[in-house]
């Protein structure tokens, strides 16, 4: 079996394990897993940008926000989305994220590196500012309360049922992105990340490629927003705050950019720290900060990059011993 097939098998096995084990754990664990998986969809969308296209965005939370607020406003004002039209809201949320990304992308895609970070930060803050101040639409800092979960044949108010739904969406998103990054389009994105100049010389419209990737990431972000609104049952400007986007970035890097699943692992770790560790010790913030710092310093390729680094080191030490052997042979 190729390494690729092994990896796919491992991911599938992990998913199956989650589906089987988690529902039998206590409800708090189920809730944590649900939240981490929903957010993981956002993180994977960010990985699409960062790991595969080389664009580090500090404003991804905006797309989650759009999807979440859209869901909340439709549900509380127009009673849309609480029955079979839940699926309609899913589509609308994804479209909302995509549209916002299309608009923002026009402004942002020309920039690279630090400037891309800055402009996505500013754009993310714009969306936050609107959510915070546009009281009549978003409820301002009070947020919007979705009191019930949708029912369409199945009752999503049941934590386990909702968990299965989330796992389903997660798996589908993961599969879709996997297919995307292995497609010719996806490969050209990786090419752009490596050597944009060369891609342009080869005749690729790199701006368009990046723009499309940005929109796709926005769509997945919007999707995660719809699910997020129903997970917590409350949408507030807190969901759009800068630290949310930064958390997503950290999760991507912690797990390993460019691996898709790395971001998922990162999501579990950070959520575990924020929501699980905080129930055990009061100094969890130090651990979180420490994780940020240590990851950046010592694990630039993230957790998924560890096997590769071990291999590298082993190869290098093998080389070194070879060289020493050669050097010790008398001429």
């Amino acid at each position, binding site marked *: 079996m190729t390494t690729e097939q092994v990896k796919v098998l491992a991911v599938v096995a992990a998913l199956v394990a989650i589906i089987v084990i988690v529902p039998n754990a*206590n*409800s*708090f664990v189920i*809730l*944590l897993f649900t*939240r981490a998986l929903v957010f993981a969809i956002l993180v994977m969308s960010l990985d699409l940008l960062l790991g595969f296209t080389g664009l580090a965005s500090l404003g991804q939370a905006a797309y989650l926000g759009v999807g979440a607020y859209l869901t909340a406003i439709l549900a509380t004002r127009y009673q849309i989305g609480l029955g079979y039209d839940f699926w309609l809201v899913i589509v609308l949320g994804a479209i909302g994220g995509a549209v916002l990304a299309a608009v923002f992308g026009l402004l942002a895609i020309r920039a690279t590196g630090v400037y891309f970070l800055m402009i996505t930060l500013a754009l993310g803050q714009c969306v936050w500012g609107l959510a915070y*101040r546009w*009281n009549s639409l978003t*409820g*301002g*800092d*009070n*947020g919007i*309360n979705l*009191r019930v979960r949708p029912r369409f044949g199945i009752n999503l*108010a049941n934590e386990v049922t909702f968990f299965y739904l989330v796992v389903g969406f997660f798996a589908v998103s993961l599969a879709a992105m996997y297919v995307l990054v292995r497609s010719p389009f996806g490969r050209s994105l990786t090419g752009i990340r490596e050597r944009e100049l060369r891609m342009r010389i080869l005749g690729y419209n790199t701006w368009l490629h990046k723009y499309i990737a940005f929109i796709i990431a926005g769509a997945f972000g919007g999707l995660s927003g719809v699910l997020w609104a129903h*997970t*917590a*049952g*409350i949408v*507030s400007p*807190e*969901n759009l705050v800068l630290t949310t986007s930064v958390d997503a970035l950290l999760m991507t890097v912690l797990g390993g950019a460019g691996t898709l699943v790395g971001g998922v692992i990162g999501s579990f770790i950070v959520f575990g720290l*924020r*929501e699980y560790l*905080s*129930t055990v010790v*009061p100094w*969890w*913030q130090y651990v979180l900060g420490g994780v940020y710092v240590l990851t950046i310093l010592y694990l630039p390729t993230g957790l998924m990059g560890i096997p590769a680094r071990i291999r590298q080191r082993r190869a290098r030490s093998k080389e070194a011993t070879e060289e020493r052997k050669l050097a010790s042979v008398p001429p």
Partner: protein
Amino acid sequence: MRHSSRRALASMLLVGGLALAMGTGAAAQGQELRIGYVAPTTGIFAQQGKDMVDGFQFYLDEVKNDFGGAKVQFIVEDEQGKPDTAVTKAKKLILQDKIQILVGGLLATTGYALAPVSTADKTVYVVPIAAADDLTQRDLSKYPYMVRTGWSSSQPSHPFGQWACEQGYKKIVTIGADYAFGHEVVGGFQRAFEACGGQIIQKIWPPLGAQDFGPFIPTIRQDADAIFSLMVGPMSLRFPKQLAASGNKKPVIGGGTSYDEFVLPSMGDEVIGHISALQYSAALDTPLNAEFVKRYRAKYGKVPSYYSESNYTTAQMIHKVIADNKGQFPGPEEFVKRLAALKIDTIRGPVSIDEMRNPVQNIYIKKVEKKKMFGYDKDELWNTVIKTYPNVNQFGQFKKDEFLAMPVYSRDIPPCKYCQ
């Protein structure tokens, strides 16, 4: 299995079963009461969260965790100032720790986030701080397991508006933080003040967290008799300073949080003479409160704010219900009924709960003065109580049905008829 081992197994099971039965019997005697508390203990609201937890814990320490025979297990979870984390932690408390009573929530958003959780999981939710009006008004029917023991935002404003008329003020300018809580405090004041002949001639809304009031202070109309301000957190510190520096000579009155003991120790002489209204003041000159302030200050090094008092009183109220039931938790529906029927004397005065599960209590009009109080040897700022309005409920001087027929107070409700 062999015959002997089967018998051994059976006897083990029997003994084990007996032990279990006796064990539960013993437990039922000194039953454990599990109370879960949700507050921000990290993040930007950490200090308010700490005061909230300290207030509750202070009461528990005084009664040695014994509520009339029930042993209280107090579990505190950090909601980090985020409403969805509050939901997660509440669920953890309810589903994993199997608490019987959920208490807490600082922000209105948190209150609104936790109330549906209490309904879905059929758990009692006691609200000591979150003051959003509609929790116990237009939205009450959705939350049958929720009881508020603190206050509603507009509750102190209703008698305060009346008091303003009595002082002879005719035209007042309001300046309040632009979010739901600010709208409700100001709205209640406007309604009450205009109902007795006053006029609100201007409503200014600086955004929540505004640092520089430079844009707003110069716009205050000169023909006002007084200024009504509603500030929270750091805004409460900055606004009076900047107002004084701008040369303001008009009397300043305000919402309770503008001068609450949470911020008062850090304020300067610029707030002397400012008047506000709330259901508590640390300067309340009753023997019960004097004792409380002295003991609290000895333990925690600061004068208790309403964050602490409200939680202390809440613990006291829960104690009374449990103690009256011989130390047994009577089940969620019954507990809510009994808590809602309670009449009790507390640090802040006599408290009872109205039929919409919000407290009926004294509202104190308090004035900032610099003096020595309760035997302390330094001059400090205190909120001296200058008038008491007894038995104020959340609708104040207005009829409940009329009140509820109107939409909740917001930026433009009541509308500013006298603004230009």
